[in-house]
């Protein structure tokens, strides 16, 4: 360690206290729920969506982004193995489409708190997670109530999810609200990459997914998936496209043995 760095550290410790500088640890460990979509499991995340954390599917901009289809695909996948809850704050759920995605409707509970009732929807989701619901998806609508009305409910939901080790995925339109960005452990930004056409018909939507935030690894990974719509005699599916895949960045190794982070302590 250079003298100037040691002096700077000593100054910080004397000014803000010895706890102001702490040794940084490795990225937080969390169990993973595999989605069975290789691009999602291997490229964008480490083994799947994190358990006990809040995952956010955020739209990149206005217009269709594929986040709700992706969320419903994940709900359908989860319903095949255990109970799932779908909080429909967007008011756009078609259970028939959920069935087309291959969902086991017997395992799906649909919660409809009403439009713009974010607080109520989050409270209901928290109650179900606390009761043992292992997987919950929340579709937020375009009309966003004031964050002060629902941020406490979101914090309580995140706490319940962490306590029960549940999987919680929230789909939000752009721009994602600040409390949501804060509560998220993994944020995947969904940007439309064009319609997939076959024989002149639209057969799906290509979506570019980017890991905008990750408390479990390094952000920045990108991949493109195809949300293929249901066809006659075939369920809808999520396919990884052979596009240019940007691997996750490797964590930067700081050549300082005992100091990698500065806490938010204030004098």
């Amino acid at each position, binding site marked *: 360690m250079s003298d100037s760095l040691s002096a700077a550290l000593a100054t910080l410790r004397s000014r803000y206290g010895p706890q102001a500088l702490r040794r940084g640890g490795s990225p937080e460990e969390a169990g993973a729920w595999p989605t069975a979509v290789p691009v999602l499991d291997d490229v964008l995340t480490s083994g799947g969506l994190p358990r006990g954390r809040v995952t956010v599917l955020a739209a990149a901009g206005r217009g269709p982004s594929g986040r709700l289809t992706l969320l419903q695909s994940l709900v359908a996948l989860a319903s095949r193995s255990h*109970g799932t809850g779908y909080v429909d704050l967007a008011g756009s759920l*078609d*259970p*028939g489409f*959920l*069935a087309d995605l291959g969902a086991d*409707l*017997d395992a*799906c*509970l*649909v*919660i*409809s*708190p*009403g439009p713009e009732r974010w607080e*109520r929807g989050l*409270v*209901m989701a928290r*109650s*179900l997670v*606390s*009761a*043992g*619901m*292992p997987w919950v998806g929340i579709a937020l609508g375009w009309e966003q109530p004031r964050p002060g009305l629902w941020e406490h409910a979101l914090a309580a939901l995140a706490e319940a999810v962490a306590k029960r080790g549940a999987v919680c995925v929230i789909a939000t339109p752009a721009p994602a609200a600040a409390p949501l960005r804060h509560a998220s452990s993994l944020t995947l930004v969904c940007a439309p990459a064009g319609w997939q056409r076959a024989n002149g018909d639209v057969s799906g939507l290509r979506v570019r997914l980017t890991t905008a935030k990750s408390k479990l690894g390094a952000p920045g990974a990108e991949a493109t998936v195809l949300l293929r719509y249901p066809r006659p005699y075939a369920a809808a599916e999520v396919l990884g496209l052979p596009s240019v895949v940007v691997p996750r960045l490797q964590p930067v190794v700081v050549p300082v043995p005992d100091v990698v982070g500065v806490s938010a302590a204030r004098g």
Partner: protein
Amino acid sequence: MRVLCARHPHLGLIAALRRYPELRGEPVILGGAPELRLPVVAASAAAQAAGVCIGQPLRQAQQCCPAAVFVPLDPAGIDTLRAAVCTELHRLSPTVEAGDEEAFGDLSGRHAEFPDEAAWASALARGLRGVLDVEIAVGVAGSRFVARLAARASHPGRIRRIRTGDEARFLAPLPLDVLPVDPAVTARLAAFGLDCLGAVASLGPADLQRQFGSDGLRLHRLARGEDGAGILPAPAQRVWSERLVLEGATGDLETLLRGVRQCATTLGVRLAAETLAAGEVSVAFELEEAAAISTSGVPAAPPGNAGELWTAALGLLGELQPPAPVAAVRVGVTRLAPAAGRQADLLRPGDGAREAVVATAERLRSRFGAATVRRPRLALDPGDLPERRFTWEVPVVAGSTR
């Protein structure tokens, strides 16, 4: 399974005649004053003989029978009578159901006190007659639907028993309008030239299903007396309450808080000892020289101990503004259920987490509305419209009676 169905006059009519014994034998119409735009709920035999029908407007009933006496519904009297009927039936039957005009009891198996089913049914009918003080028509059969029709075919003071295997023969000559299905289905059956249940029963289930979808299979089972429906016992509503009489009426908030806290603590300890949680909490203030005021609510999480119950009661206190000094406070809990996630869950059959989720969904429906938590189900006969591809249903635990 063997089901007993006892048909009796409407409990409201019996309660009214007990209250006004001088009206026995007179034309009595139950529903309220004829000026009200309400339907006739029940009518005595004399009123029905004068042309009064159940469901017709009260004003029209008055025109049919100008000499009739109109009495209002007495919900408290009906509840008292229903409880008495249930208690009497429970003496001799393990599962009972009491409606306004019918009561059901389970006669499956054998009863040690009676040599056969007929004696058992007679004892039940005698007990009911003693409670209600009217003659009762009784039917006994292998299913709810057939037992109900047997009771209709019986006469007051008589028992009509349909032996096992004779259901189809009993049902065969009955007209189609006894079927508990949509009248449009009955009309369509009649359009096919089917005029009795026997004709419907002679058709194959595939033919009926082709014409009526899932209703067709139900029709087939009903017409053959194989509906399999049993008794739907009302869930026992346990209500616990704790009342504290204050030393002198007071309006002091601190005193009221202490009183409510004491009641909540006592109840909470009792809940914890029984490993139960309350689905609904109520707080009431009994006022000096005024009617009591009360409020109730469904808490976010069902309280199961003193601390949780006190928190729930405290949340309700803000809604109570006593206009006069309070003489006593009362805290009540109802809709008691096993506390999910506690040790007692290990002793319950089934998947505890699933049951807890369903119980939570039920509580959320109570709190936020019936349409807030539902489960979609694909329709068997979807038709052309996208919204007909699925139906909504209330989630229940498989095998539960809820």
